[in-house]
């Protein structure tokens, strides 16, 4: 079969690292090709090169067997290549349609032909079974929907080769299934898809061919039928496939966080968190399961203090913090891993050592009286780099120079190493490779052993079940079930999350 894409001997260097070192990748027409590899292996970089965002230092790119030179994404789009990035790039305050046509507006007599645009958009979304509402504001969409918009945006431009960088990281299992159905439809329609994923069972389920990259080099190209998840993990990181295990219970009787009848309203005065009550004790991990958009975000915001609740109370070790400032809560021992690391977690243009201080900058080692302690901050960052295996040439590079997974490791590292008392972690292992994932789980377990109270929000149901002492299910702003993870499977949990199953106590 003919190759839709061929990358030959691609090399790309960044200050202090070789991101791609003589990489080869061939994608046949009409196949789903997975690219796997540990954090910082160079996957995103390779895709950005194929999409014309970054020029390779060496190597050739062939599209439909003829050599091409891509100097901008415009060139790639022209050749029918489209990309959905690891970190979404939609304009929040525009509608779905405006986002889709942005940059390729159909013009009629010098003005944008909105009717033609709408018609084309509807055609594209129907042809591939991707449902979106053209007039919705993007900021009101959930992640799964945002992703569909990103994909339609690419298809709208006539892409025949789709690059999806970690498309499933932000999705719950049902959404992953929906995405895979879309991908199969696209493939049936003749498109080729290259996608990156850290979840190996997903890769084995959907891919036709798998290429594994390690430290910037292609180490293997395999067929899913010939390998197990185990083999893949070994190829990627050279280690065993981990699974989250909570181990012995360390739950104490000390209540760390108490949420009492908490109600949060959104801008339209709807209750997005509706009369929620629960407790997290020292040494306990409470998991919250739920399809995105069922109030988890608002609940977290109320707990960390960026949103104020309509009624109810939040207390930390007996002290009422319902209306305390974020800073006060931080100083009282709250640590927080946000769900969107770019928007809420990092200062992308600042060096790593300034990033580690964020949220802890009012305490040592980041401060000395009224001064910011640059030496202390650098030392702490070096320590995090070692302990959490953050792959970076040094701690002076800006945060945007780290790969997605390494950014996540930095955030986790800075929060865990602040010795918190309450840890609110939203999707802590999102985008982290299987090897590093095991280490993160180990870190959380160790902290739990030392008495840390953890509130865990995750779309990874195995992670939720494996780590939590108690799992709460949120649906339409309410806690609809309190489950013992020892007695449930991801499938059961999925049923509760979508409201198919109803717990006895709630009904």
């Amino acid at each position: 079969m003919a190759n839709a894409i061929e990358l030959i001997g691609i090399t790309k260097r960044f200050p202090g690292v070789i991101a791609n070192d003589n990489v080869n990748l061939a994608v046949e027409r009409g196949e789903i090709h997975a690219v796997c590899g540990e954090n910082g292996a160079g996957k995103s970089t390779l895709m950005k090169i194929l999409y014309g965002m970054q020029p390779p230092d060496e190597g050739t790119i062939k599209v439909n067997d003829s050599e091409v030179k891509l100097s901008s994404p415009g060139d790639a789009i022209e050749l029918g290549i489209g990309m959905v990035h690891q970190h979404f790039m939609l304009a929040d305050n525009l509608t779905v349609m405006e986002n889709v046509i942005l940059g390729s507006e159909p013009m009629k007599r010098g003005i944008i032909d909105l009717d033609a645009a709408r018609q084309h958009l509807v055609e594209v979304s129907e042809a591939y079974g991707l449902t979106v509402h053209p007039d919705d504001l993007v900021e009101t969409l959930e992640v799964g929907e945002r992703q569909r918009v990103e994909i339609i945006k690419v298809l709208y431009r006539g892409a025949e080769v789709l690059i999806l960088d970690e498309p499933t990281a932000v999705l719950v299992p049902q959404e992953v299934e929906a995405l895979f159905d879309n991908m199969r439809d696209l493939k049936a329609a003749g498109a080729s898809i290259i996608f990156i994923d850290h979840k190996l069972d997903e890769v084995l389920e959907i891919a036709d061919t798998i290429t594994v990259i390690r430290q910037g080099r292609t180490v293997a190209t395999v067929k899913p039928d010939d390998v197990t998840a185990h083999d893949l993990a070994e190829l990627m990181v050279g280690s065993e496939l981990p699974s989250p295990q909570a181990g012995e219970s360390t739950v104490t009787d000390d209540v760390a966080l108490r949420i009492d009848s908490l109600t949060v309203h959104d801008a339209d005065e709807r209750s997005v968190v509706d009369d929620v009550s629960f407790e997290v004790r020292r040494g306990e991990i409470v998991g919250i399961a739920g399809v995105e958009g069922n109030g988890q975000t608002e609940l977290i915001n109320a707990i960390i203090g960026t949103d104020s609740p309509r009624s109810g109370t939040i207390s930390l070790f007996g002290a009422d913090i319902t209306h305390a400032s974020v800073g006060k809560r931080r100083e009282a021992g709250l640590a927080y891993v946000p769900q969107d690391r770019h928007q809420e977690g990092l200062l992308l243009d600042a060096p790593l050592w300034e990033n580690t201080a964020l949220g802890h900058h009012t305490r040592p080692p980041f401060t000395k009286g009224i001064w910011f302690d640059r030496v202390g901050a650098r030392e702490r960052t070096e320590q995090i780099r070692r302990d959490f295996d953050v792959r970076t040439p040094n701690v002076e590079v800006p945060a945007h120079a780290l790969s997605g997974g390494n950014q996540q490791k930095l955030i986790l590292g800075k929060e865990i190493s602040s010795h918190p008392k309450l840890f609110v972690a939203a999707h802590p292992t999102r985008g982290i490779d299987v090897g590093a994932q095991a280490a993160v789980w180990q870190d959380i377990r160790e902290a739990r052993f030392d008495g840390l109270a953890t509130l865990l929000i995750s779309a990874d149901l195995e992670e939720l079940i494996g780590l939590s002492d108690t799992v709460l299910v949120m649906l339409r702003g309410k806690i609809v079930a309190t489950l013992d993870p020892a007695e449930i499977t991801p499938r059961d949990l999925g049923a509760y999350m979508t409201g198919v199953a109803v717990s006895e106590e709630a009904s």
Partner: protein
Amino acid sequence: MTAPSLRRIGLAVAAPALAAGVALIISSIVLIISGSNPIDAYSDMFNNAKKLETSVDILNRATPLYISGVAAAIGFRMNLFNIGVEGQYLLAAFFASVAGGAVDLPPVFHVALVLFVAMTVGAAWGGFAGVLKVTRGVNEVISTIMLNFIAVGGIIAWLIVVWQDDTGQVNSGTTPIPESGRMPNLNSWVEVFTREISKGRELTGVLLIAIAVGILYHLFINRSRIGYEFRASGYNPFASQAAGIDSKKMVLTAMLLSGAVAGLVGMVEVLSENFRFDQSFVKGMGFQGIAVALLGRNKPVGIALAALLFGFLNASAGALQVGGTASREIVVIMQATILLAAVIAYEVVNRLRQKDEARTAAALLAESAS
């Protein structure tokens, strides 16, 4: 010193040098088109600058530019485009002159009072834009432009007539500040190293205030805890909010500080040249400060170099006029081209530096592999 670090220093100097070169070429072309000889014009400028009196003039001109540049830079570091330095410093200078002319105090206290009034008025006027932004979401560019109009065209234009001293002069302004409220000049300090400065030229004492402003700016923005919060909020307000940094408080702080520093811009005139505010009070320092801050990349030392360069060009305008080699407007064209060239040069050199670092890294890796 190793070769790579030498090259790094080379690259650091490259950007300003490149900018200066490009600006020189463009200015020469403009000079030729306008019928002047560029070589003559440049040599006039440099010969003039070599004179001790001109050096003093340059420092006097650079002083308010530096303070104005720092005021603008404080906003820039927070992604606030404070266009209002102009209105802030004029209003501050006006009220400071009025206050200074109205009282009689012992020397040090008198000057302190003038400075205090200037900073307070500047902070208030800047803070006003900050409050509008924080409470009403009004963009600071729009609010500061309007506040400039209100300050200059409204308040000052009205009060200067109401409060003018009635000595019956044509160009009348506020009551002059008495001797006790004036800043002594620094001539005697300079003359320790040089010959006597000719009569009529005085090195402004406000230069010391400008230096203090620069040092404090550095300590604040780069070394203090609140400076960190400030920069973090400028980088990413959402992440900072989640980290316990109140971004509204930071916006307000930025506008207050920027305004307070802006209040000092007019002090050279008020404390050591004119001693009062009149119709001919020097205008435009606020806008030049924006250019100076951009050229100096918001860095304390960078702004100083940029202020000196602009001071030199401003001081040259007169020399060109007198010498008849070119029209004084050429100076404005040079300032604009330097700024433009600098913005481009920084970008080019930045890319070169990245390429260079990547190559060094690759070489190191190759070495360690073999």
